[in-house]
C-alpha cells in the first residue's frame, strides 16, 4: 500500500469508454483528499456488489469486501456495527441494488445507517451482457426483452426520499469533477448517503447524447423535503425531463449504529458472571 494513487495490480477489464473509469478515478482522488483531511485509508472499506461496478474492488488498493449480487448494504451494516470507526462505501449496480437487493437499500435508508452508497446506474445489466434493469427506460430492448419493455422505470431518488435516506444526490460519469465532490460530500455526511450515478455504458446503453441534452446542475442541497421531492420528480428516468445533478437532499437524523453498544464493550469476566448468575436463578 505504498502507492499513492490507490491503484492495484489487477487488470482493468471494462470496455473502452465505460463510465466506470471515471468513477474509479473519482474514488482514487477522493481517497487521497480524505487522507489529506486526516482520514486514514485503512479506515475505509469498500463493499462491492456483483456486476461491472463490483470490479472496483479489485482495482483499488483499499480494504474491501466483494459481496454477493445485491448484497452490499447488509454487509456494510455488519461492518459498521462491529466497528463504527470504519467508513463504509458500497459500490452497487442498478441491477444489483434496485432489483436483487432493493429491500436492503430501503432498510439501509430507513435505519439511516452511516454509510455511503454509490450506485453505478448504467440502466442495464452490464456484466451479464445487456438485460433491462429497474431503471431502464420504457421501450428498452435488452437481450431478455428484444421487443422492448412496457414497464416504467423506478425513480431511485424518489424511493430513497420516501425511505428515509438523509443524503440523496445524483452524479454523472461524464462530469468527473462534480462526481468527485459529490462522493466526498457523501462520505463525509453522517448518515445514509445515497448517490445515483448515471454511468455511461457504451456497449449496452449509451445514453451520452440524451444525458448531455437534459442535464443541469442543482444549485445547493436542500433540507426541505417538499423541494427535494419536486426535484426528484423532475425526471422519471424515462421520458424527457430536466435531469438535475448534485445533492438533492441533505438533512441530519439519528444514526442506527449509535443505538448499539460499541465493539467488545463488556469484558469476558462480566459475561462469565452473567451466565453464572443466570444459572443460579434456575436451580
Amino acid at each position: 500500500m505504498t502507492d499513492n494513487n490507490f491503484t492495484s495490480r489487477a487488470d482493468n477489464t471494462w470496455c473502452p469508454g465505460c463510465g466506470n473509469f471515471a468513477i474509479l478515478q473519482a474514488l482514487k482522488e477522493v481517497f487521497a483528499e480524505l487522507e489529506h483531511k486526516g482520514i486514514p485509508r485503512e479506515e475505509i472499506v469498500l463493499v462491492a456488489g456483483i456486476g461491472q461496478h463490483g470490479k472496483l474492488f479489485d482495482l483499488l488498493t483499499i480494504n474491501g469486501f466483494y459481496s454477493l449480487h445485491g448484497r452490499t448494504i447488509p454487509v456494510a451494516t455488519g461492518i459498521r456495527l462491529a466497528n463504527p470507526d470504519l467508513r463504509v462505501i458500497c459500490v452497487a449496480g442498478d441491477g444489483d441494488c434496485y432489483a436483487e437487493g432493493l429491500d436492503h437499500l430501503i432498510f439501509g435508508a430507513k435505519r439511516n445507517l452511516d454509510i455511503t452508497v454509490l450506485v453505478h446506474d448504467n440502466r442495464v445489466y452490464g456484466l451479464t451482457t445487456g438485460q433491462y434493469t429497474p431503471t431502464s427506460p420504457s421501450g428498452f430492448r435488452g437481450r431478455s426483452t428484444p421487443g422492448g419493455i412496457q414497464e416504467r422505470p423506478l425513480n431511485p431518488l424518489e424511493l430513497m426520499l420516501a425511505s428515509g435516506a438523509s443524503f440523496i444526490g445524483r452524479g454523472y460519469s461524464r462530469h468527473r469533477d462534480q462526481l468527485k465532490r459529490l462522493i466526498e460530500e457523501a462520505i463525509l455526511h453522517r448518515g445514509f448517503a445515497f448517490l445515483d450515478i448515471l454511468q455511461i455504458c457504451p456497449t449496452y446503453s449509451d445514453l451520452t447524447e440524451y444525458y448531455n441534452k437534459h442535464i443541469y446542475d442543482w444549485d445547493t442541497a436542500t433540507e426541505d423535503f417538499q423541494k427535494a421531492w419536486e426535484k426528484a420528480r423532475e425526471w422519471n428516468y424515462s421520458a424527457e425531463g430536466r435531469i438535475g445533478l448534485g445533492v438533492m437532499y441533505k438533512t441530519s437524523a439519528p444514526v442506527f449504529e449509535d443505538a448499539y453498544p460499541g465493539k467488545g464493550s463488556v469484558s469476558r469476566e462480566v459475561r462469565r458472571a452473567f451466565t453464572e448468575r443466570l444459572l443460579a436463578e434456575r436451580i
Partner: protein
Amino acid sequence: MPSVNEGEISILIGGRAGEGISSAGQIIAQLLSSLGYRVYMYLDYPSRIKGGHNFAIIRGADFSVGAVRETVDVLLAMNKETIDLHKKRLSDNGAILYRADTANVAEGIGVDMKGILASEHAPPVMGNTALLGAFVRSAGIEWSRAEQVFRHAIPKEIELNLRVAHRAYEAGTELLTIPPLITKRLPVVTGNEAIGIGLIEGECLLYCGYPMSPTSNLLHFLAVHANHLGMQVLQPESETAAILIALGGAYAGARTAVGTSGGGFCLMTEALGLAGIAELPVVIVLGQRAGPSTGLATYTAQADLQFALGAGQGEFPRLIAAPGDADEARWWTTTCMDLAWKYQLPAILLADKILCEGMYSLDPMEKPTLQVVPLMAGEVEHPYLRYAMTASGISSLKFPPYKGEVIRVNSHVHDEDGITTEDPQVTRAMADKRAKKLQGLQEEIEKMEPVQVLGIRDASTAILCWGSNKGICAEIGRRLGLRVVQPVVLWPFPESCFARAMEGVERWIGVETNETGQLSRLLRQFGYVPEGVVLKYDGRPFAVEELEGELKGRVA
C-alpha cells in the same frame, strides 16, 4: 396414591394458549429440580397465540433425562379439554388436579381457582399460579422450597402470585410423595437458553435473527440480556440480510451468529458459500422444525441434515454439530464459535424444536469449556495477505483498520491477496487450501469426543441417533441392553471416533425423527449400513414407551 415410580415422575399440565402453560411447566421443572431430580420438559402447542390447546409434560428422574413417557402420574388441567384429551395417559393411580369451574371429574380434585383469584383480587392470568400452588401441596413439597422457586421464576407481581399460590396450597391435599434425591441440584434451562449461554461464553458480539420458530426465543433471550453483555442483537429485514450482516461483522472482527429455521436457512444458503470461499467465520443456529416448507410451524423434525450438508453451490468446508441436550448445546455452541474462528469457516449448530424449546437440567461441569481462541493479533505482517498459503491452510486473520495494509475478502475465486482471479492453477490451489482446513478441523474434532457412546457401551447391537433423540435412546438403550451411538459432529464426519464407537457392533438400527433416515444415508457413505430404521415424521417426538416397543420388536 401415586408415588415416584422407579425414581421418576411425569406431570402433564394443559390448557389454552395464553394461559401460561409453558411458564407453569418451567416452574414444575424447577420444583422437581430443587428436589434433586434431573428434569426434562416437552412443550406442545399449535401455531396460535390464544385459545386452542397447549400442554407441557415435565418428567423428573434420578438419571439424566431427555424424553417424555406416554404415561403421566399427575394431570394438571386448566380446562376440561385437557382432561378429555389426556386422561388416557394417566397411570393407574395417577392424580388429576383441575380447575373446578370447568369440569367435574370424579377421579380428580377440583381447585377453586375462581374463588382463590377473586379473594386475592388477582387477574385471570394467575390461574396457573393457583394450580401450581395446589400441585405443590398435592406433591408433598414444602412451601418454603416452592416459594424460593416461585421467587426465582416469576418475573412480575411476585407477592400477589405467592398469595394466590399459597391460598391454593392451603386448600389442597397431599396426594403423592416425591422423595428428594441426594444429588447436586442443577439449573433448568431451555435448549435455546443453553445455546444463548454458549454464544455468550463464545464471546459472540453480534447476533442477528429474523423471528422463526423454534429459534425466536433465542433472539428474545439474547435481546433481553444484550445490554448487560455489550452484545448487539438485531432483527433485520430478512434472513438474507441477517447472515450478510453477520459476515460483515466477522470481516470487521466481531464474533457473529445468526439463528433461524429451515425456511430462513434457505435464504442464507447463498451467503453460506460466501462464508466458505471468503473464509469468514459465522455460527448459524439452525433449529429444525417439521417441514417441508411452512409445514408444521411449532412441531419438530430432524429433516434438514442432508440440506445442511449440501447447502450452497460449490464445495467448501463447513462444520455441522448437532447437540443432543442442553449440556451439549451449550458446549458445542461455544466450540462451534471457537472452531469457526480458528478455521475461518461457517459452523452450523443443528438443533430442533425439541431441543430448542424443551427444558433440561444443565450440568455446567460436565465438560470444561474450550479455551476461547484468541483473535489472532500477533506481529505486524507486511505485506499482509488475507489468504496467505500455509501448511494448515489457515491464513492469519486481521481486521481493518490495519495500518499500512489492505484487507480484502472476496466471493470470487481469488489469489492470496484477495484479488479476483480466473487462473486455473490458483483456483485449484485455493480449493486445496480450503480442503486442508477441513482436514485440520476434522483432526481437531476427533480429539473432542464428537461421537458419544451411551446405553450399554459394549453391546453388539446398537441404536444410532443424533440430536434430540439422544436422551430417549440412552434411556431405552440401558433398559434393552443396547449400545447407543450418537455422533454429535456430523461434518466433517469424525470417521476415526465413529469407527471406535462402533467397534464390536454387529448390527444397528437408526432412530430418527424424519422420513428417509438422513443420518443413515450419511453413514452409508462411510460404509455403515443399518439393519433397519425407526422413523417418526408426524411432528411429534418419540415417547419412551413408543420407541421402546418399536425397538424391542426389532432387536429381539
